[in-house]
């Protein structure tokens, strides 16, 4: 399995896109992963599921705008250079 840096960048963009398309109210609350279902449990041990939900929500919030730019650049480059 020979990796190039380009394939790593591709994989990273694809993964971040995959996380970004998870819609909050249409999908995540349906399977019990909405962020309003993560309250409760004080103390310093939030648990894996809560951490994962927080991670998904923060990735979606932070990467929404940069993903638009990165995806546009990718589309243009792929159209031009195949």
């Amino acid at each position, binding site marked *: 399995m*020979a990796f*190039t840096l380009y394939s*790593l960048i591709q994989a990273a963009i694809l993964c971040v896109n995959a996380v970004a398309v998870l819609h909050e109210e249409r999908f995540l609350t349906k399977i019990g992963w909405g962020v309003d279902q993560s309250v409760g449990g004080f103390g310093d*041990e939030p648990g894996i599921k809560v951490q994962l939900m927080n*991670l998904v929500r923060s990735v979606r919030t932070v990467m929404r705008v940069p993903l638009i730019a990165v995806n546009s650049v990718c589309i243009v480059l792929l159209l031009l250079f195949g």
Partner: protein
Amino acid sequence: EDLDCHSYNNVGQRGRAAPPAGDSVLFEDTSSAAPAMNNQGYYTPGYNMGGTSNDMQGGAGVNNLFTDPMANAAMMYGSSLANQGKDMVNKEISRFMSVNKLKYFFAVDTRYVLKKLMILMFPYTHQDWEVRYHRDTPLTPRQDVNAPDLYIPTMAFITYILLAGMALGIQKRFSPEVLGLCASTALVWIIIEVLVMLLSLYLLTVHSDLSTFDLIAYSGYKYVGMIFTVLCGLLFGSDGYFVALAWSSCALMFFIVRSLKMKILPSLSSDSMGMGSSAKPQLRLYITVATAVFQPIIIYWLTSHLVR
């Protein structure tokens, strides 16, 4: 260790600022004035006074070749421009990663490197695995043999790439693209491993003091084992390869488990609620063991195609 660093660099400065006298200079050597100032500014920012006077003597020695004051002024302007550019680059870089923290990982000396290599290859007799602290800051690798460093992983990585090129050349399968491919594959595997470690440490809310550079260091130590394995495979054939693989895998697994155990697994005097962390020590143990088991797999993956 600060005095060590300064005296070493001042010796370097004096050696560079004095151009070789009596040499017939075929072309104007303008390099001895400007880089001396640049290196000066980078390594010892607090010692500018002594260094500048040093450099002016060297500069005056070169300037005797220039009878034209315009060239003199142009050289001064060029060196000040280079200084400005260097300052700007430093400022931009320090926004992404703190250079001080990086310098901590490269503060090594020969004794530390030798001891660390011995521990990596034969960790079974090493007694004390605690990283020593000094008033809340971890000690530099020069003073503490258990501290992770980035010098050994970097050098081992480069040596591994060169060794891979040599191994492929012996088998007549060499071409420059393969070398680049090998290097980027190894780099990508390091990045993947560090990201998976960071993700798992975040998900399990392990409040350890393992920073990103620490994880890069620990996952770079496997290159020492890889180099040893590839060398034995080249020298002794396929049997030597498997024996060396087994040896370095066991040593590396032992090393990783003992090093990370201190940092990840909760110590006896932890301050968490006794009730809540009943599931977590198991998961933390799983992380440590998974990291250790991943090392032989990746060593085999990255070196088996070099030794047939």
